[in-house]
C-alpha cells in the first residue's frame, strides 16, 4: 500500500530523496514502526507520530493513503 509521509524539523534529514514530503510503498499490515524502519529513523529520535493529524504510536496500523506526520519534540510556544 501507498502512504504519504511528511517529515518536519530535525527529522527532515531522513527523507530518502531530499524532499521531506513524499510517498512510500509498504506491505499490507504495516505499522508506523514500519515507516520508521524504512526511513532508518533511530528509536532515540523520540519522534512525534501522527496519522492523518491524530495521535499515533509505533504500533498503530496503517491503511492505504494514510498521511503520516513525524517531527521531533519542540519545547515552546
Amino acid at each position, binding site marked *: 500500500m501507498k502512504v504519504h509521509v511528511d517529515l518536519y524539523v*530535525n527529522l527532515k534529514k531522513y527523507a530518502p530523496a531530499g524532499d521531506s514530503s513524499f510517498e512510500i510503498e509498504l506491505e499490507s499490515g504495516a505499522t508506523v514502526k514500519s515507516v520508521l524502519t524504512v526511513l532508518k529513523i533511530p528509536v532515540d529520535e523520540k519522534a512525534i507520530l501522527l496519522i492523518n493529524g491524530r*495521535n499515533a504510536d509505533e504500533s498503530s496500523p496503517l491503511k492505504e493513503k494514510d498521511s503520516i506526520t513525524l517531527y521531533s519534540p519542540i519545547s515552546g510556544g
Partner: protein
Amino acid sequence: MYGWMGKILRVNLSNGEINEEALDPQVARDFVGGRGLAIYYMLKEVDPNCDSLGNENKLIMTAGPLTGTKAPTGGRYMVTTKSPLTGAITCSNSGGNFPAELKKSGFDAIIVEGRAAEPVYLWINDGKAELKPAGHLWGKDTHETDDAIRAETDNKAKTAVIGPAGEKLVLFASIMNDRDRAAGRAGVGAVMGAKKLKGVAVRGTQKVSMANEERFNEMNQKYRGRFKEVKKAGPYPLTTHGTAITVVATQTHGVFPTRNFQTGQFDEWEAIYGEALTEKYLVKAKPCFSCPIACGRVTKVPDGPYQGQGEGPEYETVYSLGSDVGVGDLAALTKANYLCNELGLDTISMGSTIACAMELYENGHLSESDIGFPLEWGDGEALVKLIRQTGMREGFGDILAEGSLRMATRYGHPEFAMVSKGLDLPGYDPRGTQGLGLNYATSPIGASHMRGDLPYCELLGVPVKIDGLTWADKPPIVVKWQNVFSLIDAAGLCVFFSIRYLCDPTLEIRPEGIMNLLNAATGADYALDELEKIGDRILNAERLFLLRAGFDRRQDSLPERFTSTPMPDGPAKGVVCHLDEMLEQYYQIRGWSQDGLPTEEKLKDLGLAGM
C-alpha cells in the same frame, strides 16, 4: 536573606514618596516571589472592585529568588495588577535583562501606587530610587524612550517602558522591557499609562547571595548538562528557528487558529513558520539573561513596503498577526510585530481584535464606512495600518483599542470575540487541545497558555505526547500543571527550560530541579510537596481576587464557537471542546464547590483563610 534581596520598593506617585520595606521572610517562604509575592500584595492591599485605571489600583513588579542568578533561565519577572481589559487579576511575565538588573539593583519587588500629576519615570540606581520628569518622553515610542532614558541615566541601565498605546490607555497595551521583550497581556501598559508612569529604569551591580553556592553551582551544571545532552543530538528547534517552529505542531494537528478561529489549518503556513523566518529575515538568535536556549529572534526585513528591523515574530504573533487574520505575507506580519513592539501593544490581543473586526466585516456587521477602508482577510496593508491607528487611538483604531469583546458587543455580535474572561485566546484551538481549553477557561487572568501550558504534552511531545482530542483524562493534568506553572512564575524561571529540564519527565512534572535550585539559593529547605502546595496557594489566592472582583463559574467559559460548533475540517473535524464535563471534575480536584468557590477547608489548608 539568601536568594531574596530582602527589600521591597514602594513608590507612591500621588505624593512622590519612595520607601523601602523589608521583605517578610515568612511571606517570602510561603509565596516564593514573582507571581506569588505579587498576589500576596494584591490581595492584601488592592480592592478587587477598584477602577483598574484609577488611583486605587497598584502596579506590582516582582522578581523571584532565582531571578538574577546563574540558574538556567533565571531572568524572569512578573507584572501584576487589576486588568483594565478584563476587570480580573492579571499577571504578565517577561524575560530579557531588565528583571535580573532589577534584582541586582537591590529589590525583589516594586509596588507602584497612586497617579502622578505629570509624566514621570522611576530611576533605580543600585538601591537608590528617584522619580524623574518624563514630560519630554510622553509620546515617544518604546525604542525612543529606552534610548532617551539610558542617555539621561546610565547607558547600561535596563528599562521597562510604555509606548503611545499605554499612554493612550489602549486596553491591551504592553510594558516593553529591553526594547522588545513584552509583559504583554491584559493591559498592564494601560495601568502604567493611567499612572502617568512612562517607565522604570534600573541599574544594579549587587550580587544575589547564595545560601550554598557550591551546591547551587553543582545543580546549575547538572540541569544545564541535561539541556546540552539534548542539544548535542541535533539542532535545537527553539534555538535554530525560535518559537515560530511550533506552527509545525499546530498546523499538523489542525489547531492553528485561522481567520478568527473559523478553522484550524492555514493554507499559507509554510510561508510564515519558523523555518521561513530563519531563511528570510533572521539576523541572530537572542537569549534572555542566563538562558541557554536563546529563542528570541533579531530580525530584519531588508526591503520593500514592510522594511524594518527589530525582534520577532515568535509563535503567538505568527498566529495572531498571521493565520488568525489570514495574512501569509511574512514581511507584513513581521512589520506588524515591530509596530506592536514600538507602540507597546500585546500582539495576541491586537491580532485577535483585528481578526474579530475582519469577521464582523465579512458578515456585514461592520462596513467600509465604519473602518475607512475595506477589511478583507489576508490584507497585510490594512493590518499594519490598523495597528498604527490602534496604538495612537486614531480613526477606527480608537474602537479596536477597546479590545475584541467591547468592539464585538458594540456592533451587536459578542460571539465573534475569541476571549475567555475578556482576554483573547493564544494560538491553539481548544477543540483539538481539550486540556488547554479547560486551562483557558480556568486561568485566573483569562485565556492564557502560560498558566498551565498543555500544548507541551498535547502537541509538542514534552515531556510526553498525549492525545489533544480526549477530555476525560485532562482535569487532573491541568490542575497539576497550573500549580507547577505558578511555581515557575514565582521562582523567576522560564517555562521553556523548566518544564523539560527541571521537572520529572512524566505528566506529573514534579519540580525537583526547581526545588534543588531554590534550596541551594535560599536555604529555605523546601520539600517537594511544599513547593507544589505553594503553586496551589498562588492559584487559589488569584482565584480569591477574581471572585471578589465579581467573577464566578459563569466566566470559567469559552466562546460558543468552541463548545457548540464542531471544528469544520482537518484532523479535529467534528470535535467540540467538552468544557462543562471537564469543569465539574476540575472543581472537585481543586477542592472547590461546583460554583467554582474554594471551600473554607481548602483555604485553611493553604493558609489563605482570612486573607
